[in-house]
């Protein structure tokens, strides 16, 4: 018979890294042949009870696909607040791509960015402006005289560069043309 505490700990750790419901079958398979269905049920019950403590932020849920660890509804608002605060200090993939285009192609206009990315990037450009990672640098003398964008000094500081000339080429970083995968 396996150590009941260790078994519960193992189950909890698996559920904590899974990020999605884990089926009973998967749990049994991962834990190895000696663990019976009863052992597993006892371990899961142990986890459930432990998280009933009011000081716990998590709970065990039985959902369609099996079991999962989730945050408790009572602290949902705080979790949402945290995710919101964190999002403010992060760049989405879209923002990163737009910033990269402006850094490598500057000065560049929104239509040019849209053309390269294949999607409208005006929202992303606004966000980058708000965060002071890019700035407006005049207008391009073509039809519609669109605004030209450049990166800011703040970005250089963030990247640890003295000047834009120091921006590595794509080849230097192994992002060369040859690496186009099918």
């Amino acid at each position, binding site marked *: 018979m396996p150590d009941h505490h260790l078994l519960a700990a193992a189950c909890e750790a698996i559920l904590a890294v899974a990020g999605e419901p884990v089926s009973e079958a998967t749990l049994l398979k991962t834990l190895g042949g000696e663990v019976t269905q009863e052992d597993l049920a006892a371990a899961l019950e142990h986890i459930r009870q432990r998280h009933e403590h009011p000081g716990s932020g998590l709970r065990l849920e039985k959902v369609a696909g099996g079991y999962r660890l989730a945050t408790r509804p009572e602290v949902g608002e705080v979790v949402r607040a945290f995710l919101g605060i964190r999002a403010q200090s992060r760049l989405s993939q879209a923002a990163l791509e737009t910033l990269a285009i402006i850094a490598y192609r500057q000065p560049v206009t929104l239509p040019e960015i849209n053309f390269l990315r294949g999607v409208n990037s005006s929202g992303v450009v606004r966000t980058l402006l708000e965060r002071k990672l890019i700035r407006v640098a005049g207008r391009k003398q073509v039809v519609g005289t669109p605004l030209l964008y450049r990166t800011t000094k703040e970005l250089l500081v963030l990247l640890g560069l003295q000047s834009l000339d120091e921006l590595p080429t794509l080849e230097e970083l192994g*992002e060369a043309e040859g690496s186009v995968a099918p």
Partner: protein
Amino acid sequence: MGAVALGEAKGPAVHLPVFQGPLDLLLFLVQENKVSIWDIPVATICDQYQAWLRTMEELDLVVAAEYLVCAAWLLAIKSRMLLPRRSKDEPDPRAELVERLLAYEKVKRQAAELAGLLSLREGVFSVRLSPVESSGEPELALEELDVGALAQAMGEVLQRFRREHPPGLVLAPLGCSVQEKMRELLGFLSSQGSFPLLSHMLTRRERVEAVTCLLAALELVWLGAARVHQQRSFAEIYLVSTGEPVAVERALGYA
């Protein structure tokens, strides 16, 4: 330093150390010979180093260029050791060797330290419950933004752009025109009466020329100056003159 097991069908398996580079090999030799790093017998070490290179070559192990550069360096030190020093202030020819070996030995100890720390942490994984409303999109903390991430993003943009905008079909300039080919075929037909069209097409070096040839033949058939003839499927296709002077006249007019 790891080891490769070189198992032979006969005889015992030989365990050959795997070196991280010439400095690693040199350090190994210094330790093997139980000599002080401050007083390396260069001649001995140099000979042993070269013996190791030969062994590695015999075993078909890749001997990187760095090993050969280092071998030349050792030989240079060895020869300088043979010359009498002109003054007491003249530095020991081995000084740089000692310095580099000491620095590399430090790196190895630091690497071992990291390996030890990492091994203690092998079973530790970050807890990550999926929050109720996660965007699911990979996001980068601003503080982690570096030129590498920027270059990678640019690479992805360019890759996607190239995927979505494949280069247009570029036609190579025709080596010969259909008209020219028609004239050529008519020449063959008037002298030979018939012409092995398929083999001619299949032996053209340029695909464009084969196609031009086919178009010219079809043109001749359409104008009534020639007809095509094939005995059975996949057999030779012959272009045969119809012998109609009017049609040939007309074809030459087109050509």
